[in-house]
């Protein structure tokens, strides 16, 4: 006998422990099966683009920090690269190296939060504590460099706000040798945990064609098995001087492009970042880090779209200058914003509990979704 069933609309958020901030998901269910997911965003819309128009170019940097607050260094990095392109200036070697070192440390820190909170969502509390313990060490390195724990205002257009602390290189090397075995620890704790695999493998499979059409980038795109990394494929700064691999999803526990693949890419990338940091620390040249900072930043009339590989994906800045000291328009293409748009596609046909697994695996940060 066929039972008469009805669709049910379920509201998740904006205050929900697993939505990684203030996100509302409107889930339409048939029993436990998801028919559609509608994300409602904007609960953290902080008017970044309006602020950018009202500020001068250097004044925008603190606001840039506050977009993706888990990867503030990289946001500054991307912004500095974009404005430098617009100005047509070169920055000293040492600056580039320090930027890369900071950027890669930030990538590890950001991935640690991603992995830790992902475990938390799936029901594993301990990895969260482990990840935050290690993240705290990276934060200490940043704090030693620029005094702030999260929002740095360190990378400036044309240079850095100031040079490294004399002890930095030693401490950074210490951290690298401390953290190397920790990646394995995380693997033992989470990656190969049976329950974790059962919750994530073969869930939320993202085919490559769909991924490209939806503009997915970063670890999520690589999870679908496409070797694409802007650090290599559209290189900027001094990334072409380092030797590192781009991990791609291979479907080790299930299908290529499932949640486990996306998660595991992040684990592997931490190792690759360590490689880059090691090389950069070895080759770190001497020099002055503030010499190339322009006195007045007034780019010529023109526009630029410049992108960098942020821990979450492709972070693009589209800047239009009308020749005044304020940008005429700054549009940010935040990877989180783009990745959230695919929720519906990924969740359809799965169980309600998988929404959490999928949302965690695409690793969004709401500050960047809403800007």
């Amino acid at each position, binding site marked *: 006998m066929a039972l008469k069933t009805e669709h049910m609309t379920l509201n998740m958020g904006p205050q929900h422990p697993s939505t990684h901030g203030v996100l509302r998901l409107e889930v339409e269910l048939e029993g436990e099966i998801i028919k559609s997911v509608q994300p409602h*965003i*904007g609960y953290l*819309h902080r*008017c970044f*683009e*309006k602020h950018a*128009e009202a500020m001068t170019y250097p004044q925008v940097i603190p606001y840039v920090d506050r977009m993706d607050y888990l990867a503030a260094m990289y946001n500054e990095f991307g912004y500095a690269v974009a404005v430098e*392109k*617009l100005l*047509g200036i070169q920055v000293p070697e040492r600056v580039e190296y320090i930027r890369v070192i900071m950027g890669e440390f930030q990538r590890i820190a950001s991935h640690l939060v991603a992995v830790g909170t992902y475990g938390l969502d799936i029901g594993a509390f301990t990895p969260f504590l482990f990840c935050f313990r290690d993240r705290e060490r990276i934060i200490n390195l940043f704090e030693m460099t620029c005094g702030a724990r999260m929002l740095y205002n360190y990378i400036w257009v044309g240079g850095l706000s100031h040079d490294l602390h004399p002890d930095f290189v030693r401490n950074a090397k210490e951290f690298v040798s401390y953290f190397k075995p920790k990646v394995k620890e995380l693997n033992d704790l989470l990656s190969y945990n049976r329950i974790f695999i059962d919750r994530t493998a073969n869930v939320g499979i993202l085919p490559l064609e769909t991924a*490209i*059409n*939806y*503009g997915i980038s970063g670890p999520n795109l690589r999870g679908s098995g*496409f070797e*694409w990394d802007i650090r290599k*494929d559209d290189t900027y700064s001094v990334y072409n001087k380092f030797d590192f691999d781009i991990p791609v999803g291979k479907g080790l526990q299930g299908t290529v492009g499932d949640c486990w693949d996306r998660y595991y890419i992040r684990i592997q990338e931490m190792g690759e970042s360590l490689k880059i940091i090691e090389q950069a620390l070895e080759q770190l040249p001497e020099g002055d880090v503030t010499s190339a900072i322009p006195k007045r930043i007034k780019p*010529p*009339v*023109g*526009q*630029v*779209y410049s*992108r960098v590989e942020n821990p979450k994906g*492709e972070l*693009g800045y*589209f800047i*239009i200058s009308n020749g005044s000291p304020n940008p005429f*328009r700054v*549009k940010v*293409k935040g990877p989180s*914003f*783009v990745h*959230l*748009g*695919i929720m519906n*596609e990924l969740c359809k046909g799965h169980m309600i509990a998988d929404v959490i697994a999928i949302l965690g695996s695409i690793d969004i940060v709401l500050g960047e979704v*809403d*800007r």
Partner: protein
Amino acid sequence: MKNIQEIFDILKEKFGDSILELLTTLPVESFITIAPKKINEVCLFMRDNEELKFNSLMCLSGVDDANGKQVKDENGAVKIEGSTLSVYYHLESTEFRHKVTLKSSAPKENPEVESVALIWHHADWHEREAWDLVGIKFLNHPDLRRILMPYDWEAGHPLQKDYKNPEFYHGMKVPY
């Protein structure tokens, strides 16, 4: 890999008058201007053409050009009249590794641009954002609603250069 001149030539040959001009004099980035009502056809062609294969839309941005003249209305508030709103499309081919920028402008009084959301799904949210913040109407968009601002926001589109913020929203004071 094609440069922007070659891409322009291919498009000009195929679409003729809909491809308005190629601007290469500005520093850093050149772009091709396209008629707003034809942009969807051009984009579909660019995605599927064997020589171009622009399978990825990197970014879509709405801009208020503010190129009109300023007038004061009776309350003394400054309005900009007769300007245009533009959409910039940054396309990329992951296969051939070439990139191109397109631009499409429409008058502010009637800012209608064809949607490309069905060509690249990526554009869906970006177009909603451009409608929300800049006020560009995308024709044939599957679901053109506000995205970042509240659905019942009545004060207009905040990224327009002459936007005025309201005093109150639902009884909450907005200015500092």
